[in-house]
């Protein structure tokens, strides 16, 4: 089975600082890692390949330094890696990002399964996976917590819901987003690391993926970030004490005063 895993390189810290002047992420001095949720996607891709054979191709869109994330994915067992890197992609929101990734996947052509992490730890939108499936017009199952059975033309999975899970059987090709309950990502192996250092990383620009230029990057992004700010902290609450009657009377007074 040919499996595509989409990953994102994110800053390691969960407390991302925002430059108050430009409203952009301050990446200086922050180590970049593979989005933690994508680690489960890579592991699941490798597990499925180990079970049924085939190939795992990791794809990411990002600046040239995102190559490091792809090499790490190879050290964890992925076979091939494609970096989508082009100034034209800069400023993409989730719509443009999923459009771009979908265009690249269309170019890869021969695939049965696409796996994404459920969301990225920096943006937290959980929109890119479903967006890719939409652009490709293929089925999607999100929040997959278990792959139960892989058949020739279909795959049966457990999809996590708020109060349990749903068992869904989907035809290929299909896109999953996975949750952390699905597996325990392995550590890299020595031979995997050695292979990853020597691996050739394919780099594609907007020309390579034959994308519509108008749908890329900032131009292709309907989302406009007007302002990013930290909400002002709430003031301290007022505590009322005494008997129930006192408290009720006190509360009524306060509400009256503030009316």
């Amino acid at each position: 089975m040919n499996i595509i895993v989409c990953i994102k390189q994110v800053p390691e810290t969960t407390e991302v600082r925002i430059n108050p002047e430009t409203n952009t992420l301050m990446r200086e001095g922050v180590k970049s890692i593979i989005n933690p949720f994508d680690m489960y996607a890579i592991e699941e891709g490798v597990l499925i390949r180990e079970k049924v054979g085939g190939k795992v191709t990791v794809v990411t869109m990002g600046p040239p330094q995102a190559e490091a994330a792809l090499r790490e994915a190879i050290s964890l067992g992925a076979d091939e890696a494609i970096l989508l890197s082009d100034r034209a992609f800069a400023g993409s929101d989730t719509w443009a990002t999923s459009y771009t990734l979908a265009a690249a996947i269309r170019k890869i052509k021969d695939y049965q399964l696409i796996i994404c992490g459920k969301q990225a730890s920096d943006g937290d939108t959980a929109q890119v996976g479903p967006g890719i499936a939409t652009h490709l017009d293929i089925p999607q199952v999100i929040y997959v917590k278990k792959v139960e059975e892989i058949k020739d033309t279909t795959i049966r999975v457990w999809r996590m819901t708020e109060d349990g899970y749903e068992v869904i059987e989907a035809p290929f090709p299909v896109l999953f987003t996975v949750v952390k309950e699905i597996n325990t990502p392995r550590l890299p192996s020595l031979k995997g690391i050695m292979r990853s250092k020597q691996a050739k990383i394919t780099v594609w620009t907007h020309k390579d993926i034959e994308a519509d230029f108008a749908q890329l990057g900032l131009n292709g992004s309907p989302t406009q970030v007007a302002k990013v700010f930290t909400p002002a902290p709430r003031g301290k609450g007022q505590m009322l004490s005494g008997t129930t009657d006192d408290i009720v009377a006190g509360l009524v007074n306060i509400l009256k005063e503030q009316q």
Partner: protein
Amino acid sequence: MMDYLLTEEQVMIRDLCRQIAKEKIAPLAAEYDKSEKFPHGIMKIIADADLFAIFVPLEYGGTGGRVLDMAIATEELSRACGGIAVCYAASALGTYPIVLFGNEEQKKKYLPDLAKGKTIAAFGLTEPEAGSDASAIKTTAVKKGDHYVLNGTKHFITNGGEAGVYTVVAMTDRTRGARGASAFIVEKGTPGFSFGKKEEKMGIRASTTCELIFTDCKIPKENLIAKEGMGFIVTMKTFDMSRPGVAAQALGIAQGALDIAVKYAKERHQFGKSIASFQGIQWMLADMATKVEASRALIYAVARMVDSGNTSVAKESAIAKLFASDAAMEVSTNAVQILGGYGYMRDYPAEKFMRDAKITQIYEGTNQIQRNIIALQLIKEMAK
């Protein structure tokens, strides 16, 4: 940080082993120490990470078999647990005789699985009456047709019972003394090969130390390593390769103890200040760090010497093992001292490092034997 000019590959080994030690071994070290159970789960992680490939040559599925690579791996694993690290390193000890002296068939048969960690190895030399005086071994191997028949008992064998492949030294000709010993490969499950007492130990308790019992144990004659009478040469050359590893184990234990001591000294407040601000503690830490770094410099230098193909490394290997293990004992004892009452308690990890350190002064040649080797070589060199 001292720069040892490691190759890119050695940096990968160091970083990967450090990650495994920190994430997978350290959280379980106390538990294995307490239960004295063999760490099967961690051995699987080590195998999946290809660390067993480090001591096997490339052509048999390994990554090259360099002694420095192995020293770096053992050091990093020992930093979290000297017991778990020795389960790993003892497989190298059991494998080296095949790497160094095995014929092509033996290498093809055993090394690929050992490199994958599908099975682990053990080395069987020590006997109840033959410790430092290895020439006193009583286990015999008698050739009968296509087979050798082994009889005798080995004890204190690390990985005994857990390993699938054993390299065992036995006498094939008692009349020739040390020149009458030969080395053999014995597989677990061979009829007549059983396991005896499992030892309860002071330290390195995650590792298994067990008796090997041979009772009319028939092994194919193809399992002879090198030639009859080569047993002690095989042993000595194996130890030349493995001694830097024991030294590295000691180094890792010392570094682990130092890490704990520095961390604790910064956190612990007495008389209104962190105890790290007291010169008495600072000087202890400085001496500990100096010993650790000196050990590392010595071990890496000796390992590089072995890797360069230099075959007369007995004295240098012994110096590294002697210095690093004495340093480990001193550093880990001082770590306990710095932690004070807490250092003595099992709830804190310092005392385990002290217990684990002790064995490094004893096994693979006691430090007294190391001094004999060093002195003998010194005198020989003088006579030249």
